[in-house]
């Protein structure tokens, strides 16, 4: 028992540090402040970055973007119609301080929790789109995120439209306790329904995608794409380092690692995403046309 407890202690001792860094906002603020890319240190202006879909034109570093920015950079102009925005979080297990955290997140990121759903055109093809937002409580998945993802999936089923999900998440929303864990099974069961009906599901993994999100719907796409350099994993690097007591290898858990390990179909730069998704939709729509 002693050693087991010890293992547990080691496991979680350093976890705090990981969860609290948000290089996202830092990175883009740095560009504004220093007029250079924090990744390649070449000169870079905010306008230039935005014009290139928030990717550095020199080193191709992909900056994190919000759900709204994703929509703007991906779908055909004016084509996005949001749905499912009428549901909102409660504090299902009475977790101390959760309401405060929620209203804080709503104030800084707007309503809608960590998932935005809509129907849209991608290069002229109609799809159901569901996009996670890391800014809203680290993209954590609670009841609302799980319900919204499920509704997106089931809307695809109902309308016989391809579904495209963009992931970014630190994991489950622990303030909702067991209810958040159940969202893993919930979203996966919805995907089971799609599978039986042969509706295509495309996943795009973006930086970062971790925990219960990776270990559920994010790994269940018919095709799984990833943006370059995205961190994708189950356990966070610090948790693993403190378990195994050694440094992790260079590039561990990055998109390129996941591609090499066989869990990602292709790494697609943000600038190519529209074209790639269009092609995949075209080549996966035989069943949709037939019925």
């Amino acid at each position, binding site marked *: *028992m002693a*050693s*087991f407890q010890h*293992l*547990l*202690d080691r*496991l*979680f*001792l350093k*976890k705090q540090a990981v969860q609290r860094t948000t290089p996202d906002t830092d990175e883009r603020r740095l560009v504004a402040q220093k007029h250079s890319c924090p990744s390649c240190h070449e000169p870079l202006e905010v306008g230039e970055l935005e014009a290139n879909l928030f990717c550095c034109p020199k080193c191709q570093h992909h900056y994190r973007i919000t759900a709204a920015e994703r929509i703007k950079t991906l779908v055909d102009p004016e084509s996005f119609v949001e749905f499912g925005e009428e*549901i*909102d*979080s*409660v504090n*299902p*297990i*009475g977790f*101390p301080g959760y309401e405060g955290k929620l209203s804080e997140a709503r104030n800084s990121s707007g309503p809608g929790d960590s998932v935005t759903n809509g129907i849209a055109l991608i290069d002229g093809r109609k799809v159901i789109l569901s996009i996670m937002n890391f800014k809203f409580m680290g993209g954590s998945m*609670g*009841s609302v995120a799980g*319900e919204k993802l*499920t509704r997106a999936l*089931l809307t695809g*089923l109902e309308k016989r439209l391809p579904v495209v999900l963009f992931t970014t998440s630190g994991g*489950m929303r*622990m*303030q*909702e306790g*067991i*209810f*958040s*864990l*159940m*969202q*893993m*099974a*919930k979203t*996966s*069961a*919805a995907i089971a*329904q799609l*599978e*039986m009906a042969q509706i295509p599901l495309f996943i795009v993994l973006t930086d970062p995608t971790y925990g*219960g999100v*990776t*270990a*559920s719907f*994010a*790994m*269940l796409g018919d095709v799984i794409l990833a943006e370059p350099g995205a961190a994708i*994993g*189950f*356990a966070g690097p610090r*948790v*693993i380092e403190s*378990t*195994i007591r050694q440094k992790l290898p260079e590039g*561990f858990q990055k998109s390129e690692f996941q591609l090499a*390990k066989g*869990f990602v179909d292709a790494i697609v730069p943000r600038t190519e995403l529209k074209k790639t998704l269009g092609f995949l939709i075209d080549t996966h729509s035989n069943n949709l046309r037939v019925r």
Partner: protein
Amino acid sequence: METNEIQKKIQELQSLAEKSNVNIDSDIKRLSEKLGEGARMTPADLWKKIQLARHSDRPTTLEIIATITESFMELHGDRYYGDDAAMVGGVGLLEGRPVTFIGHQKGRNMKENIRRNYGWAHPEGYRKALRLAKQAEKFGRPVVTFIDTAGAYPGIASEERGISEAIARNLKEFAMLRTPVLCFIIGEGGSGGAIGIAVGNEVFMLENSFYTVISPEGCASILLRDPSKAPEAASQLKLLPSDLLAFGIVDGIIREPDGGAHIDHVVTAANIKAQILDSLKRLETKTGEQLARERMAKFMSMGRFVEEGGPKSNFFQRLFSITRKS
């Protein structure tokens, strides 16, 4: 089974209310919250229950199987990479009926624990579990799983071989199984590693077990910024059987002998067996398709939120009219 009785009362109340078209949701919610024994306990008392769930003499998956079956054969391997000793499974005869058993396996001593990685499974463990579950489906056997893990193993090899993919696939595939699936949380029900084999038609918890999205230690580290505050975190996470029963997440609580399951393995196993037989009597009258559809519906309805402009049931009614068609 005191809490079980209370839960039964609540269920009776609920079905009565439904029949008479009275909305008592908020009352039920209040009642359920009161029911949670975690709320009535001090963190220190609650922590004793957590320690019981992790007790080194607690009956393990293989011991329970050996006790309740007339005969059992362990089957090994995922057919891809290896055989994970932290996850076991096989076929047994339960009152003459073939049943597939799957579960996390902790060791009884240090040596066995090292071999079994303290019940932290790797991807090959989850893939073996799925292989055996599909084998059960093919040959018309019910599946019974025993959950007892602090979590899926957070190591380099585990990530390299796709622990996320393995758990995710299980969630989807277990949802679709056309055979009865019963799940028992017998000790620790730790996060993704637990739910990876816990998508069942009925899910039960032993009296001194817990089931949680994150370990109390992890929650304390992250949210309370102090791992030593684990008892407090455990209290906040509402992870005891009575909590989860009240939430409608689990379907029943299995009584343990006074002092905990480790005091009397035989009685504990007998209680589990009685529940399996009771559940199977009910589930075996259903078709495989019905079982799969009910299981999917059960998990798809989980979550608590508020919705403007109408009850969420509409959405699911719409859904089930779709799935019935296909």
